[in-house]
């Protein structure tokens, strides 16, 4: 032992034996230690990037300006009220330099133009990452101390969704994601609380199953549950991947549990369509395709997605139910979006024949079910409860379950340590969410979440919307939060209101903030049109826009109904901005009309979008104006010309800022266009 200590003690003696030498050596060590901190600072990453920036800038034409703007040292954006401490601009030096858009590499490229500045909210608010960090690794990547790495650019719109609850024009992906959450029933099982104490609502209610035996057969339910998309490619219902025995029991329960609705079936109508093309033309004339899609020979869906796809409707519905539904859908489902068409018996029979022919003989060929036993029915009921069917569907005797699936209010801040990833998956929250939507059962075979058939774009949109549901969004100061507009529950009153709900006007038209966007907003229709035209339009609707596909169906209204509706519309749906009778509908001087004509064709080039003279004008974009003098009120035309956006926000016609005199002359010219414009356009 002593011998091994020998060299150490001699070394000690040589170094520290002499007090002066010892002092020198200790000082040297101290100096070196003291140098470590400045050296670390000197070699830090952000200095390296700042030097690199100055080197890059030197060769550019605008070097002097850029050098003047450059501020050395650590930069920080600090907003304690919203939890922002971002030092990203220490390395991302050129974020605000307009001329650096051509830089192809980071961190020197200019930030793309967005509605906010980096000073306002910092960077991490949208991009995530660790704002206070000053090294690339710590700022961008997930570390032990900071779980939120930089968000991939494809989900960047989630940042907007933290404050903006309403749809924004510039964030189509976020809007789509939220719409999907509401439309595909995600929010029926997973509750998503909003910062203003509400919850996200589903937009489409799945059909009630309480009376399903009236509508369809057990065999169809079986085939549908086995694979909804094999019946209709566009079905929103997901695939629950159930075993055949389980489907047999669920279908048995649903049929046994169904109770009939009086009047929702009709006996066969003796008149049958003689002409085989009559069905197709009635389907076309009634504009069924505005809401319902049918797969064409090429396999493409043609039609809208408001109602269910009808490609194989003949396999689904019982003839007696379909007949009654076409006759009056409100008997079976009082809240349906489908209008009551008031078809004649002949038309009902024609439509029934046409729809029943839309079937696929193979679809139910392999479904053979024995009569259900009580055990099967009981088991079916327990399965229906287990899978939460009543979260979306109304089922007699089973209540809508509460908190059926995990709440997703803060899913966008979920800690990665709480997640279980699949092998080979990258350990990030967006990938987890997207993976879970793509293939939920891959995470665990026992999960109840069904398999949806979303496209890649839809999954990205859903992930974006879910990432916006995070802690930051919940704790945003109210001054920054932009709430969604209040949903309108407007209902027209009285007898006219009854007719309007019977015709399901709100499925296509919006009035006072409620309704669809397929057809024009009618909030101020009473100020806009002349009564006679409105009545004629109800009797024989045509299109006003030659280039549009969707058109108003003919509802076979009685004269009394037409007069009730017209009275209501003309009295109630008036704008407070002007009096509809403030300008005369005729009696303008010839010079004024001629002046208006000059303005129309020469100065304002209106014929590029509108048709007044059906022979020479070709404009296809705006409504046809051939009979506008018999259609619109002069006051509406005048105020429209003065400022179209004031009467209908978001309309395509630009505001021309014309003088009062010009607007008056043009009004005179347009009001001189008498005649029934709709008939000519109807072709």
């Amino acid at each position: 032992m002593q011998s091994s200590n020998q060299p150490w003690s001699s070394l000690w003696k040589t170094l520290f034996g002499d007090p002066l030498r010892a002092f020198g050596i200790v000082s040297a060590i101290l100096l070196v230690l003291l140098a470590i901190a400045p050296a670390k600072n000197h070699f830090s990453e952000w200095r390296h990037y700042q030097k690199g920036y100055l080197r890059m800038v030197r060769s550019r034409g605008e070097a002097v300006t850029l050098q003047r703007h450059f501020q050395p040292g650590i930069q920080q954006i600090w907003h304690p009220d919203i939890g922002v401490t971002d030092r990203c601009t220490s390395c991302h030096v050129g974020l605000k330099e307009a001329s650096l858009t051509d830089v192809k590499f980071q961190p020197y490229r200019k930030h793309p133009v967005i509605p906010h500045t980096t000073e306002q909210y910092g960077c991490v608010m949208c991009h995530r990452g660790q704002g206070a960090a000053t090294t690339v690794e710590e700022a961008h990547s997930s570390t032990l101390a900071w779980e939120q790495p930089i968000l991939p650019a494809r989900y960047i719109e989630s940042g907007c969704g933290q404050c903006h609850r309403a749809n924004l024009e510039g964030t189509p992906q976020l809007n789509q994601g939220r719409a999907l959450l509401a439309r595909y029933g995600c929010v029926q099982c997973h509750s998503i609380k909003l910062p203003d104490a509400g919850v996200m609502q589903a937009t489409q209610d799945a059909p009630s199953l309480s009376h399903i035996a009236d509508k369809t057969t057990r065999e169809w339910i079986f085939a549908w549950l086995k694979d909804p998309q094999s019946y209709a490619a566009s079905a929103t219902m997901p695939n629950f991947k159930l075993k055949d025995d389980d489907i047999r029991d669920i279908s048995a329960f649903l049929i046994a549990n169904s109770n009939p609705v009086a009047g929702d079936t009709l006996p066969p109508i003796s008149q049958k369509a003689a002409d085989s093309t009559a069905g197709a033309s009635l389907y076309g004339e009634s504009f069924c395709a505005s809401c319902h899609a049918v797969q064409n020979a090429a396999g493409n869906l043609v039609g809208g997605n408001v109602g269910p796809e009808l490609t194989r409707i003949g396999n689904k519905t019982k003839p007696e139910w379909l007949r009654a539904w076409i006759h009056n859908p409100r008997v079976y489902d009082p809240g349906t979006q489908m209008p009551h068409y008031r078809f004649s018996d002949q038309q009902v029979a024609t439509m029934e024949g046409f729809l029943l022919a839309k079937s696929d003989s193979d679809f139910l060929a392999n479904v053979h079910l024995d009569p259900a036993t009580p055990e099967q029915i009981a088991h079916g009921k327990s399965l229906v409860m287990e899978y939460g069917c009543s979260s979306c569907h109304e089922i007699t005797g089973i209540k809508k379950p509460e908190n059926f699936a995990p709440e997703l209010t803060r899913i966008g801040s979920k800690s990665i340590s709480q997640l279980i990833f699949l092998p080979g998956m990258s350990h990030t929250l967006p990938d987890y969410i997207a993976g879970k939507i793509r293939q939920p059962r891959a995470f665990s075979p026992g999960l109840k979440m069904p398999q949806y058939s979303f496209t890649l774009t839809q999954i990205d949109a859903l992930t974006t919307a879910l990432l916006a549901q995070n802690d930051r969004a919940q704790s945003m100061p109210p001054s920054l939060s932009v709430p969604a507009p209040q949903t309108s529950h407007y209902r027209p009153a009285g007898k006219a209101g009854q007719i309007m709900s019977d015709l399901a006007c709100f499925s296509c038209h919006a009035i006072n903030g409620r309704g669809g966007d397929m057809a024009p907003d009618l909030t101020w229709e009473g100020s806009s049109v002349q009564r006679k035209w409105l009545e004629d339009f109800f009797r024989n609707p045509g299109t006003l826009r030659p280039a549009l596909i969707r058109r108003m169906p003919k509802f076979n209204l009685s004269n009394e109904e037409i007069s009730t509706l017209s009275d209501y519309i003309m009295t109630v749906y008036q704008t407070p901005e002007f009096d509809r009778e403030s300008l005369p509908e005729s009696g303008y001087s010839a010079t004024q009309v001629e002046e208006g004509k000059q303005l129309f064709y020469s100065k304002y080039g209106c014929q590029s979008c509108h048709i007044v003279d059906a022979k020479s004008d070709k404009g296809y974009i705006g409504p046809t104006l051939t009979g506008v003098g018999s259609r619109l009120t002069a006051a509406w035309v005048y105020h429209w010309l003065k400022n179209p956006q004031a009467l209908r926000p978001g309309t395509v016609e630009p505001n021309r800022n014309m003088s009062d005199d010009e607007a008056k002359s043009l009004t005179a010219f347009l009001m001189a266009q008498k005649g029934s414009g709709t008939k000519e356009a109807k072709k």
Partner: protein
Amino acid sequence: MMTKRIPLAVIVLCLVVCALMLAASGCARQSASAAGPAPTAYGSAIVESSGGKQIGAAGSALPQPLVVQVNDDQGNAVTGAAVTFSGPSGVSFDPPTGLTDSSGQLSASVSLGGMAGRYQLVASTMTKAQKRVEIKSEEIALDYQRRLGQLLDDKYCSRCHNPESTSERVSNFDNLEVKPHAFTEGDTLNKMSDADLLAIISHGGPALNKSPLMPPYGYTLSKTEMQALIAYIRMISDPPYQAPGMVYAQK
């Protein structure tokens, strides 16, 4: 002494790291090509079937997949040829490599990188003589401002400026006496300055002695919106638009 040793250590460390990285990248490249399925046939040419010249959002998947076709000497489709997609950093393909199907085609969904701009994608296949043949296609990624411009174009402009009709919308192009310029017409539009475009959009055609069929949008759109529109027009123009450099006084 200490200060001398640090750089030495750093250099050694760098060398080791570089060697490791080289080895790793070599491995990765090998494993990537090994991961692709073995080709059962070889073609002599590769062509783009569809999916080129798309416009998408930066960082997002393009609306349509990129479809390429492998042909033999006679121009017949080749089934089972191996195709590899590649692109600048940030671009991802699903699948990145694969065999052509019975119609000689391989389709991949493409996600563009996070930066706005033009992305050149390359699809390549090997001929029998192990020669690499490739086809390049260009896609455009839009940032927030240009996407806003795209939405505005869709709403206000494309009805006349885009001669193509879709099933949703009939083009008004043929109905106009004076034909508007398509926004991709770089030969014409690239010569116009941003100020000229802004003048035409806000004051209409007559502002630059052009047709009054082009209405003024200055009272309808905000300046931000018009700038977004111009940024979008510049981005999609073909040939690409080169912004004039800033002019500074020389010494």
